[in-house]
């Protein structure tokens, strides 16, 4: 096959329109012998427009889609990259090397980054421990605390809308004999404080409630939860990966005992995160990574200087830009919502609108099938539900916990707006979404029936 590709251009002529034609020559017989039947039917390689369009998953697109999936990950801010590069170029020492300049400067950079992260959340630098990401932090927090206090405490409380790593860690603890309470949430996504207070037992080791939900963008009442936990003497852990740098966090005002932070959600590099662990009163955890005792024994392993420096730079930038970014995100979210609602009806926002981080908008479109909606939105990079669950066909467990019906859960789309999102991108996203929703609704008999006033729930579908 490869041989014929090389020989064919020599023996055949390319014509306009992209076809191949065999020259009327006497020695076309050898060409025939070498070529296979499929060679003639082979489409010619795209010539000059290769740089302009590409076929991905069966769809031809002529450029990168516009990115509106900020909850999955964020682009690296050029200022962050600028801070990281020297540590990939010439300052490549291991921060734990104590005997030479490379180690000393690396260590100094790590400590400076630690201080910047601590400043953003109102903590002491000695309370910040670097890990490989928020998932590892959640594992250390949930499993580490429960195992450390396993003699006296046997109960863990969390919510049904937590990130998969927290839920999975809790399930793991259940196998070890712990009791876990998965608190339900209200239909607006917020946890019920009275239920939380009731659920706390004398042997509760940990309460884990995430600050900002990655799927629906709802902000939980951290101060109230912290107050309840402090009264009852239970450590309060929060997964603040989506909240860091976007909403103000103060670990003392909010009574937070442990906190998981992630760099790649605030325009930092991927592969690094930090765990906040309170010193007064001291919260102890059992380390999950055994080794040389780095990071005060909490997390062994070489601290990745470039990534950590990037994380510190991202936090410094976030501290300065939080207000500006928040105002912009709120304005853009309003623009997106108004634009879509002005042209299509039966759009439902999943999660509370008042207690929401504005950069995360999760919408459900009634009478539209989710997969086909996403297939038509290839020019916009959005996601339906969370990246963690997108591999399976089941609807998002977060939406199910909100009480959203299965058909609406399937059609949910999550729009992520960030620091770099522009008005033109939002307008284009509106245009594409509305176009696709209208197209699908035109084809939908359910929509027709609903418009005619028929109550879909009262229909008796015939059995075949």
């Amino acid at each position, binding site marked *: 096959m490869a041989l014929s590709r090389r020989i064919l251009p020599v023996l055949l002529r390319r014509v306009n329109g992209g076809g191949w034609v065999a020259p009327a020559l006497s020695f076309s017989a050898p060409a025939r012998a070498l070529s296979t039947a499929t060679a003639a039917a082979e489409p010619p390689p795209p010539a000059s427009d290769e740089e302009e369009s590409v076929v991905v998953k069966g769809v031809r697109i002529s*450029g990168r889609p516009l990115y509106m999936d900020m909850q999955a990950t964020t682009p690296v801010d050029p200022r962050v*990259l600028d801070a990281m590069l020297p540590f990939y170029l010439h300052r490549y020492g291991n921060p734990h090397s104590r005997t030479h300049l490379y180690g000393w400067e690396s260590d100094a950079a790590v400590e400076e980054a630690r201080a910047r992260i601590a400043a953003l959340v109102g903590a002491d630098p000695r309370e910040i421990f670097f890990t490989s990401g928020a998932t590892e932090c959640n594992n250390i927090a949930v499993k580490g605390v429960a195992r450390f206090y396993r003699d006296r405490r046997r109960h863990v409380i969390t919510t049904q809308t937590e990130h998969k790593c927290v839920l999975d860690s809790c399930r793991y603890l259940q196998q070890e004999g712990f009791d876990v309470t998965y608190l339900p949430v209200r239909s607006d996504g917020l946890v019920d404080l009275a239920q939380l207070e009731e659920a706390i037992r004398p042997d509760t080791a940990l309460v884990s409630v995430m600050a900002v939900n990655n799927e629906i963008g709802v902000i939980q009442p951290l101060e109230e939860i912290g107050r309840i936990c402090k009264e009852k003497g239970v450590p309060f852990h929060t997964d603040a990966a989506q909240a860091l740098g976007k909403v103000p966090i103060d670990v003392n005002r909010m009574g937070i005992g442990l906190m998981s932070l992630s760099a790649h959600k605030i325009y930092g590099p991927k592969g690094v995160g930090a765990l906040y662990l309170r010193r007064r009163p001291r919260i102890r955890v059992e380390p999950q990574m055994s080794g040389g005792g780095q990071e005060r024994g909490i997390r062994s392993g070489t601290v990745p200087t470039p990534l950590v420096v990037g994380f510190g730079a991202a936090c410094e930038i976030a501290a300065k830009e939080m207000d500006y970014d928040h105002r912009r995100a709120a304005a853009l979210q309003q623009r997106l919502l108004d634009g879509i609602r002005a042209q299509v009806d039966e759009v439902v926002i999943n999660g509370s609108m008042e207690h929401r981080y504005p950069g995360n908008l999760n919408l459900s479109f009634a009478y539209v099938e989710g997969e086909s909606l996403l297939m038509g939105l290839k020019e916009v990079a959005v996601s339906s539900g969370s990246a963690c669950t997108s591999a399976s066909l089941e609807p998002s467990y977060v939406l199910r916990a909100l009480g959203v019906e299965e058909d609406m859960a399937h059609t949910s789309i999550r729009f992520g707006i960030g620091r770099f999102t522009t008005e033109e991108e939002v307008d284009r996203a509106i245009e594409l979404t509305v176009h696709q929703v209208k197209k699908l609704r035109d084809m939908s008999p359910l929509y027709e029936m609903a418009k005619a006033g028929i109550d879909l729930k009262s229909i008796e579908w015939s059995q075949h």
Partner: protein
Amino acid sequence: MAAAVTSPVRSEVLSLFRSFLRTSRQFSDYNIREYTRRRAADAFRENRALADAPTAAAAFAEGKKQLEVAKRQAKNTMFHATLLTKMW
């Protein structure tokens, strides 16, 4: 070296702003390009009202530092620009 800190002259500030706009055009990524332009414009507009000399001088110095960062990174992204550039 106890000279009084002077606030920057208007022409200096305008020249810095123009440099930002020029540098922003060098970014091959649409989002970063637009952000640099917009953030610079908003920052200069906000700091226009700064009255006293030390804060104005500090803001100007900060602006110059940020310009250096932007220039370095604009060159970076130019070299790493891929064929699959944005839709616009």
